[in-house]
Protein backbone atom coordinates (compact mmCIF):
# COMPACT_ATOMS: atom_id res chain seq x y z
CA UNK A 1 0.00 0.00 0.00
CA UNK A 2 1.25 3.48 -0.86
CA UNK A 3 1.06 5.99 1.99
CA UNK A 4 1.36 9.76 2.45
CA UNK A 5 1.55 11.48 5.82
CA UNK A 6 -0.21 14.76 6.55
CA UNK A 7 1.21 16.32 9.72
CA UNK A 8 -0.36 19.43 11.22
CA UNK A 9 0.45 19.40 14.94
CA UNK A 10 3.23 21.60 16.33
CA UNK A 11 6.58 19.87 16.99
CA UNK A 12 6.70 21.75 20.31
CA UNK A 13 3.09 21.57 21.55
CA UNK A 14 2.15 18.08 20.37
CA UNK A 15 3.65 14.72 19.51
CA UNK A 16 2.30 14.84 15.94
CA UNK A 17 5.74 15.11 14.30
CA UNK A 18 7.14 12.41 16.62
CA UNK A 19 4.27 9.98 15.94
CA UNK A 20 4.47 10.64 12.21
CA UNK A 21 8.19 9.86 12.28
CA UNK A 22 7.57 6.57 14.07
CA UNK A 23 4.85 5.70 11.53
CA UNK A 24 7.13 6.65 8.62
CA UNK A 25 9.88 4.39 9.94
CA UNK A 26 7.39 1.52 10.27
CA UNK A 27 6.29 1.96 6.65
CA UNK A 28 9.88 2.01 5.43
CA UNK A 29 10.72 -1.09 7.46
CA UNK A 30 7.72 -2.93 6.05
CA UNK A 31 8.11 -5.06 2.94
CA UNK A 32 4.59 -4.48 1.66
CA UNK A 33 4.14 -0.71 2.13
CA UNK A 34 5.77 2.39 0.70
CA UNK A 35 5.90 6.03 1.78
CA UNK A 36 5.50 8.54 -1.06
CA UNK A 37 5.87 11.77 0.87
CA UNK A 38 5.20 13.81 3.98
CA UNK A 39 3.29 17.09 3.95
CA UNK A 40 3.57 19.43 6.94
CA UNK A 41 0.81 22.00 7.51
CA UNK A 42 -0.21 24.49 10.18
CA UNK A 43 2.22 24.59 13.16
CA UNK A 44 3.93 21.39 11.97
CA UNK A 45 5.89 23.52 9.47
CA UNK A 46 8.02 24.70 12.43
CA UNK A 47 9.88 21.40 12.05
CA UNK A 48 11.66 23.03 9.07
CA UNK A 49 13.12 25.98 10.98
CA UNK A 50 16.86 25.72 10.39
CA UNK A 51 17.54 28.31 13.09
CA UNK A 52 16.04 26.23 15.90
CA UNK A 53 18.69 24.86 18.23
CA UNK A 54 17.89 21.59 19.90
CA UNK A 55 19.21 21.05 23.46
CA UNK A 56 22.08 18.56 23.14
CA UNK A 57 20.65 16.14 25.66
CA UNK A 58 17.27 15.87 23.92
CA UNK A 59 16.07 13.93 20.90
CA UNK A 60 16.70 15.95 17.73
CA UNK A 61 13.43 15.57 15.85
CA UNK A 62 14.40 17.78 12.91
CA UNK A 63 17.62 15.86 12.38
CA UNK A 64 15.71 12.56 12.56
CA UNK A 65 13.39 13.68 9.75
CA UNK A 66 16.36 14.92 7.70
CA UNK A 67 18.15 11.60 8.11
CA UNK A 68 15.02 9.69 7.10
CA UNK A 69 14.63 11.87 4.02
CA UNK A 70 18.28 11.48 2.98
CA UNK A 71 18.54 7.75 3.58
CA UNK A 72 15.23 6.78 1.98
CA UNK A 73 14.65 9.58 -0.51
CA UNK A 74 11.42 10.76 1.14
CA UNK A 75 10.17 14.23 0.16
CA UNK A 76 9.45 16.49 3.12
CA UNK A 77 7.14 19.30 1.99
CA UNK A 78 6.12 22.28 4.10
CA UNK A 79 3.06 24.27 3.07
CA UNK A 80 4.55 27.49 1.72
CA UNK A 81 1.77 29.78 3.01
CA UNK A 82 1.82 28.25 6.49
CA UNK A 83 5.63 28.34 6.58
CA UNK A 84 6.14 31.92 5.40
CA UNK A 85 3.49 33.13 7.86
CA UNK A 86 5.52 31.47 10.65
CA UNK A 87 8.88 32.77 9.48
CA UNK A 88 10.18 29.61 7.79
CA UNK A 89 11.85 31.15 4.75
CA UNK A 90 13.65 29.55 1.81
CA UNK A 91 16.32 31.35 -0.23
CA UNK A 92 13.75 32.08 -2.92
CA UNK A 93 11.20 33.52 -0.45
CA UNK A 94 13.97 35.49 1.24
CA UNK A 95 14.62 37.25 -2.07
CA UNK A 96 10.91 37.72 -2.78
CA UNK A 97 10.30 39.42 0.60
CA UNK A 98 13.68 41.20 0.51
CA UNK A 99 14.83 39.64 3.77
CA UNK A 100 18.40 39.41 4.99
CA UNK A 101 18.51 35.66 5.44
CA UNK A 102 16.74 32.36 4.96
CA UNK A 103 16.23 29.59 7.49
CA UNK A 104 14.63 26.64 5.72
CA UNK A 105 16.38 23.53 7.05
CA UNK A 106 18.08 21.13 4.63
CA UNK A 107 15.94 18.35 3.13
CA UNK A 108 12.71 20.35 3.55
CA UNK A 109 10.96 22.06 0.63
CA UNK A 110 8.29 24.76 0.52
CA UNK A 111 5.38 23.61 -1.62
CA UNK A 112 1.81 24.68 -2.30
CA UNK A 113 -1.21 22.76 -1.07
CA UNK A 114 -1.44 21.33 -4.59
CA UNK A 115 1.35 18.95 -3.53
CA UNK A 116 -0.96 17.60 -0.82
CA UNK A 117 -3.74 17.18 -3.39
CA UNK A 118 -1.33 15.15 -5.59
CA UNK A 119 -0.36 12.96 -2.63
CA UNK A 120 -4.05 12.40 -1.80
CA UNK A 121 -4.75 11.29 -5.36
CA UNK A 122 -1.59 9.21 -5.83
CA UNK A 123 -1.65 7.29 -2.55
CA UNK A 124 -3.91 4.58 -1.18
CA UNK A 125 -3.99 6.18 2.25
CA UNK A 126 -3.22 9.57 3.76
CA UNK A 127 -2.61 9.41 7.50
CA UNK A 128 -3.16 12.59 9.46
CA UNK A 129 -1.19 13.53 12.62
CA UNK A 130 -2.50 16.42 14.70
Amino acid at each position, binding site marked *: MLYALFVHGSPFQSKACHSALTFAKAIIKSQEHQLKGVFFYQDAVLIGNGFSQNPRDEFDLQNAWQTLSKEHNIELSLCIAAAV*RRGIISEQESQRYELKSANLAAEFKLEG*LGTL*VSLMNDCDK*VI*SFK
Partner: protein
Amino acid sequence: MSNTLIHITSSPYSGLKVKEALDLAMVLATFEQKVELAFSGAGIALLHQDQQPSNEQGKALFKMLASFEFYDLDKLYLPASQLPSDEAKITSLASVLSDQEWTDMLTRYQHTFRF
Protein backbone atom coordinates in the same frame (compact mmCIF):
# COMPACT_ATOMS: atom_id res chain seq x y z
CA MET B 1 -10.66 12.91 -7.77
CA SER B 2 -10.67 12.56 -3.99
CA ASN B 3 -13.66 12.87 -1.73
CA THR B 4 -12.77 14.76 1.43
CA LEU B 5 -14.45 15.90 4.62
CA ILE B 6 -12.96 18.81 6.53
CA HIS B 7 -14.30 18.45 10.07
CA ILE B 8 -13.90 21.61 12.15
CA THR B 9 -14.03 21.11 15.90
CA SER B 10 -11.83 24.03 17.04
CA SER B 11 -12.98 27.53 17.90
CA PRO B 12 -12.51 29.98 14.98
CA TYR B 13 -11.00 32.57 17.30
CA SER B 14 -8.57 30.47 19.34
CA GLY B 15 -5.84 30.35 16.71
CA LEU B 16 -5.07 29.81 13.03
CA LYS B 17 -6.37 26.25 12.86
CA VAL B 18 -9.78 27.07 11.45
CA LYS B 19 -8.49 29.70 9.02
CA GLU B 20 -6.01 27.20 7.59
CA ALA B 21 -8.65 24.46 7.52
CA LEU B 22 -10.87 26.70 5.38
CA ASP B 23 -7.88 27.55 3.18
CA LEU B 24 -7.32 23.83 2.65
CA ALA B 25 -10.99 23.33 1.74
CA MET B 26 -10.82 26.11 -0.84
CA VAL B 27 -7.58 24.83 -2.37
CA LEU B 28 -8.97 21.29 -2.63
CA ALA B 29 -12.08 22.68 -4.32
CA THR B 30 -9.93 24.80 -6.66
CA PHE B 31 -8.18 21.59 -7.70
CA GLU B 32 -11.64 20.16 -8.46
CA GLN B 33 -11.61 17.75 -5.55
CA LYS B 34 -14.94 17.04 -3.88
CA VAL B 35 -14.96 18.68 -0.43
CA GLU B 36 -17.63 18.94 2.23
CA LEU B 37 -17.41 20.53 5.68
CA ALA B 38 -18.72 19.40 9.05
CA PHE B 39 -18.84 21.47 12.22
CA SER B 40 -19.11 20.25 15.79
CA GLY B 41 -18.01 21.28 19.27
CA ALA B 42 -16.35 24.70 19.40
CA GLY B 43 -16.23 24.72 15.60
CA ILE B 44 -19.95 25.49 15.44
CA ALA B 45 -19.14 29.04 16.55
CA LEU B 46 -18.02 29.72 12.96
CA LEU B 47 -21.64 29.26 11.80
CA HIS B 48 -23.13 31.89 14.11
CA GLN B 49 -24.69 34.84 12.34
CA ASP B 50 -24.05 38.46 13.29
CA GLN B 51 -20.40 38.02 14.29
CA GLN B 52 -18.40 41.23 14.36
CA PRO B 53 -14.83 40.44 15.41
CA SER B 54 -12.36 43.31 15.45
CA ASN B 55 -9.01 42.98 13.65
CA GLU B 56 -7.43 42.24 16.99
CA GLN B 57 -9.88 39.44 17.75
CA GLY B 58 -9.22 37.69 14.44
CA LYS B 59 -10.18 37.62 10.80
CA ALA B 60 -13.91 37.49 10.06
CA LEU B 61 -13.74 33.88 8.92
CA PHE B 62 -17.51 33.43 8.67
CA LYS B 63 -17.46 35.83 5.72
CA MET B 64 -15.47 33.19 3.83
CA LEU B 65 -18.49 30.88 4.09
CA ALA B 66 -20.55 33.17 1.86
CA SER B 67 -17.96 32.82 -0.91
CA PHE B 68 -17.86 29.03 -0.67
CA GLU B 69 -20.63 28.50 -3.21
CA PHE B 70 -18.31 29.91 -5.91
CA TYR B 71 -15.98 26.99 -5.18
CA ASP B 72 -18.85 24.45 -5.16
CA LEU B 73 -18.35 24.18 -1.42
CA ASP B 74 -22.03 24.13 -0.63
CA LYS B 75 -22.26 21.13 1.71
CA LEU B 76 -21.86 22.27 5.31
CA TYR B 77 -23.21 20.12 8.13
CA LEU B 78 -23.73 20.28 11.86
CA PRO B 79 -25.45 17.82 14.21
CA ALA B 80 -28.91 18.70 15.54
CA SER B 81 -27.82 17.53 19.00
CA GLN B 82 -25.26 20.35 19.14
CA LEU B 83 -27.43 23.21 17.93
CA PRO B 84 -26.81 26.22 20.14
CA SER B 85 -29.61 28.00 22.01
CA ASP B 86 -32.21 30.00 20.08
CA GLU B 87 -30.38 33.23 20.85
CA ALA B 88 -27.48 32.28 18.58
CA LYS B 89 -28.72 32.06 15.01
CA ILE B 90 -26.96 29.63 12.67
CA THR B 91 -26.29 30.52 9.04
CA SER B 92 -28.73 29.04 6.57
CA LEU B 93 -25.75 27.83 4.49
CA ALA B 94 -25.37 24.87 6.87
CA SER B 95 -27.64 21.82 7.01
CA VAL B 96 -28.65 20.41 10.38
CA LEU B 97 -28.38 16.61 10.49
CA SER B 98 -30.09 14.17 12.84
CA ASP B 99 -27.80 11.88 14.85
CA GLN B 100 -28.28 9.06 12.34
CA GLU B 101 -27.66 11.34 9.34
CA TRP B 102 -24.55 12.74 11.07
CA THR B 103 -23.15 9.26 11.70
CA ASP B 104 -23.89 8.19 8.12
CA MET B 105 -22.31 11.38 6.74
CA LEU B 106 -19.06 10.80 8.65
CA THR B 107 -18.55 7.45 6.89
CA ARG B 108 -18.98 8.73 3.33
CA TYR B 109 -15.49 10.08 2.65
CA GLN B 110 -12.21 8.77 1.35
CA HIS B 111 -10.33 11.34 3.47
CA THR B 112 -11.37 13.07 6.69
CA PHE B 113 -9.21 15.84 8.14
CA ARG B 114 -10.16 17.15 11.55
CA PHE B 115 -9.00 20.56 12.71
